[in-house]
């Protein structure tokens, strides 16, 4: 029988404050084949680990049982420690005395200690049956897929490309740039957004290691970390990308008016157009929904063909499917803006002079629908009173519970820009609940706004009304003065929150990434692993993981890129051996396991047995996630889970029922 070492951790007072650790150690000493049993304040610390390593060498230990916190915390650490001392890391058993005992039963120390004793006995029973295992190595593709060409996607792409990896940047829209391209100035520096963004856009387009696929979407994903096979659909532009020179003569002659998406529908463009003044690539695209020729499939119009000197219009262009192999993926698909027409009481969508923050951003931008002049949409007059209303759709249990994180700063910026554009001739009010200016330079920015005589009303309005003459008005109670104020603004800007992208459902299905309760993509750990999803090789960057501003998006993107480089730099990665394994002699070829595996990790292979060709299941180890469904489903018990065999689990059950210090304790 193998020699066992048992270590009971105090975890400071986390465990020892409830469990009588000395009693547990005494009990452990009495178990068969236990060469040494110790307790210590912090097993995961350097001296704690050294203690185990020394004992392995001195007592020739063949199994180690550590009764401590959840294996999710330090199992990796302890495995490394044990391996360093020459013992196979999979001959280690962790018993959870913290999450499963001291934290769950903190008000019953006596019974908690009894449970700790039971769990240690069970851990020893399993440890006896553990077998040594080895990690496997698999080679990886040194290519990366970045989904989403906003600031986060572009930053990640540039970092990855600079590191020498080949990057495929897929963007759904006709141009990269995302939300940031729509902004006028950025807080808190009031940098011109396009000025700091367009150089990056050009870098992306020019970088030899980046393949830019705009007007494209991911349609299928297969494979596993280091070896993903991705299908990308390149939607037709009906314009030859190589021939188009971006002169926009086609747009001038097209008769079909279409709401301009880049300007949030505040102006119109044509069925053939270039996405924005800063579009990269600067190539026209025809909208098949609006173009007369494409919609009715008739040989009509064709004015763009006549006008195009480069002969770049190609109505017969087909969608293209591109297959790529990548080692890692960065998801950077961004977020959307709350549709305030869902809050009917605020009049958005009903009254023209109630606009959203993103619409205001276009109004105030020189390349926007009014050439950068702040004008009321209803009558194109300069407003004398502008009011900003905060927290629209955010911090609201009826819509989105979370704080949108950028609403306050965006409004401060827009309020300051209003003052800068219109000078002393405008009164600017901000109706707020809390003013959140938390970042570097942010509270100073808030002060700057106050210095510019922007009035902050501490209270939110219940509703917004419009009188018969079209005059907007509303009442708001101000906590500061304790007065009920009536405001009659010419223009109202709603601080709509950032909400999860409507594509996240599709993205989740394609990449097997989950979403958190707020609807954004779920990170592996909210504190310590905010850049990774729970799926190996898939990383998260930007607002798709949670609403954030530009500095945070850039930081997260660079971080995600670094993690991808970590993963792929070595050219190969290690895989955990905790996978399912098929005993071919027991397999009947019934295919139940193949149909039940959620990771498509089981393949049927034809093999010769007894002179016949028989179908046998085989586990694709690299894709197996060790979930155990196949093990449970197999009718002939032909599949076993390494490190979690039936014998190991049943031994624990037996030990559980064997009773503790009191003899004859049943279950």
């Amino acid at each position, binding site marked *: 029988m193998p020699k066992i070492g048992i270590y009971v951790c105090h975890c400071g007072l986390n465990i020892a404050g409830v469990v009588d650790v000395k009693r547990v150690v005494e009990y452990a000493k009495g178990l068969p084949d236990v060469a040494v049993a110790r307790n210590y304040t912090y097993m995961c610390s350097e001296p704690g680990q050294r203690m185990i390593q020394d004992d392995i060498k001195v007592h020739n230990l063949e199994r180690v049982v550590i009764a401590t916190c959840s294996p999710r915390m330090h199992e990796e650490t302890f495995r490394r420690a044990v391996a360093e001392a020459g013992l196979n890391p999979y001959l280690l058993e962790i018993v959870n005395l913290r999450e499963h005992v001291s934290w769950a039963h903190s008000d019953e120390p006596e019974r908690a200690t009894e449970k700790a004793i039971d769990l240690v006995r069970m851990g020893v029973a399993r440890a006896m049956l553990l077998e040594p295992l080895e990690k496997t190595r698999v080679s990886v593709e040194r290519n990366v897929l970045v989904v989403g060409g906003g600031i986060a996607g572009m930053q990640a792409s540039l970092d990855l490309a600079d590191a020498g990896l080949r990057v495929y940047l897929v963007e759904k829209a006709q141009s990269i740039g995302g939300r940031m391209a729509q902004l006028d100035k950025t807080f808190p520096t009031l940098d011109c957004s396009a000025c700091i963004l367009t150089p990056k856009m050009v870098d992306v387009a020019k970088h030899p290691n980046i393949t830019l696929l705009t007007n494209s979407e991911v349609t299928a994903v297969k494979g596993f970390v280091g070896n993903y096979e991705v299908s990308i659909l390149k939607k037709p532009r009906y314009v030859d990308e190589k021939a188009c020179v971006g002169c926009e003569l086609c747009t001038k002659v097209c008769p079909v008016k279409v709401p301009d998406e880049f300007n949030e529908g505040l102006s119109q463009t044509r069925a053939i157009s270039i996405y924005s003044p800063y579009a990269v690539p600067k190539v026209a695209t025809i909208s098949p929904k609006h173009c007369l020729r494409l919609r009715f499939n008739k040989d009509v119009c064709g004015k763009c063909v006549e006008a195009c000197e480069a002969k770049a219009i190609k109505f017969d262009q087909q969608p293209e499917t591109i297959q790529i192999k990548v080692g890692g993926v960065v998801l950077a698909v961004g977020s959307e803006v709350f549709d305030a027409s869902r809050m*009917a*009481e605020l009049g958005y969508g009903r009254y023209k002079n109630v606009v959203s923050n993103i619409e205001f951003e276009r109004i105030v931008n020189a390349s926007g629908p009014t050439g950068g002049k702040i004008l009321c949409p209803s009558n194109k007059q300069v407003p004398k009173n502008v009011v900003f209303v905060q927290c629209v759709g955010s911090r609201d249990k009826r819509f989105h519970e979370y704080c949108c994180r950028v609403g306050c700063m965006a409004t401060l910026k827009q309020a300051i820009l209003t003052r800068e554009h219109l000078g002393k001739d405008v009164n600017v009010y901000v109706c707020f609940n809390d003013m959140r200016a938390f970042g570097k330079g942010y509270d100073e920015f808030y002060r700057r706004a106050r210095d510019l005589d922007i009035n902050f009303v501490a209270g939110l309005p219940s509703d917004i009304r419009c009188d018969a003459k079209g005059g907007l008005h509303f009442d708001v109670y101000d906590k500061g003065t304790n007065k009920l104020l009536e405001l009659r603004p010419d223009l109202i800007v709603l601080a709509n929150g950032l909400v999860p992208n409507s594509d996240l459902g599709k993205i989740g299905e394609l990449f097997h990434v989950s979403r958190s309760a707020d609807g954004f993509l779920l990170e592996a750990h909210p504190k310590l692993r905010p850049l990774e999803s729970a799926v190996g090789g898939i990383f998260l960057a930007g607002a798709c993981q949670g609403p954030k501003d530009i500095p945070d998006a850039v930081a997260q993107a660079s971080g995600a890129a670094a993690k991808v480089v970590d993963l792929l730099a070595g050219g190969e990665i290690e895989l955990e051996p905790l996978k399912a394994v098929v005993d071919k002699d027991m397999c009947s070829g019934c295919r139940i396991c193949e149909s039940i595996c959620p990771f498509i990790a089981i393949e049927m292979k034809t093999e010769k047995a007894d002179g016949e060709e028989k179908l046998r299941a085989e586990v694709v180890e690299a894709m197996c996630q060790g979930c155990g469904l196949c093990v449970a489903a197999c009718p002939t018990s032909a599949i076993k889970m390494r490190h979690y065999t039936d014998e190991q689990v049943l031994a624990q059950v037996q030990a559980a029922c064997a009773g503790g210090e009191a003899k004859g304790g049943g279950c």
Partner: protein
Amino acid sequence: MKVAVFWGCRILTSQYAYEMSVRETFPRFKVELADLSEANCCGDPVKSMNDFAANYLAARVVALANNTGLSDLLVPCNRCHFVISEAKSFMAKNEKTSKKIVEILKEEGLDYNPSIKIWHTIDFLHDFVGLKHVKKAVQKPLKGLKLATHVGCQIVRYSELGRVDDAENPRKLDELVRAVGAESVDYAEKLDCCGANLMLSHVDSALSLAGTKLSIVHGYGVDGLVVSCPDCGLMFDYKQKDAGATVGAKLGFPVVYYTQLLGLALGVEQEKLGLHLNQSPVDKLLSKVSA
């Protein structure tokens, strides 16, 4: 189709026009009304005194409806509709307390039945009878009438309870007005309260709220205001003179119940619809409707 009907207190004791117009119009859609016998107050004023007793009173109304053997209960008063809806929700969520109420009801030989569906006149006509059938039954379309609707508070709020129409953008009463051929205008103060509840404690403030809304709507140049609750009818029609006096406005503005309007469009005689009982000068409105 037979439905039980609970009139509450105010309709039965003073707002007769509402009762008369419902009794005249509903049968024309093949709806037979079965009055509850020995009905009690729904509990609205008691909510402020003792919530348990108020829920008991509302549950008793539902139990009386159960006695008729019918599955639907029509409640034409907004406030009764709210009280009964809240009581139903309370009974469903609070096992211990609802048991006590069920016991008290049993002492009178009554059984609470949670599956009885509660209707208001608006959703009954709009959803159950259906706009199509309302339109079809119209014999004298009220063309040329420009009206404003006041649907009230307690049948559109609060949404989580499941109300008769959308809280921020109620459309059903407007669509019913259009179904009888008249025009219904939208206006900013549409969702403002008539103030009726304050008549129990702050009469001047109640009249001030009603007077303010009336003078604003009057200012829009519409031919009249359409209501569907006896409390709103009390404030805007019955007490119009006092309301006007409180805010210093001379009003003289027609206010009618929707069912009175519906009756006119169906060709029912004006007296049968209680139009002689309205205290507001509805003759102005009636003269616009072709003879």
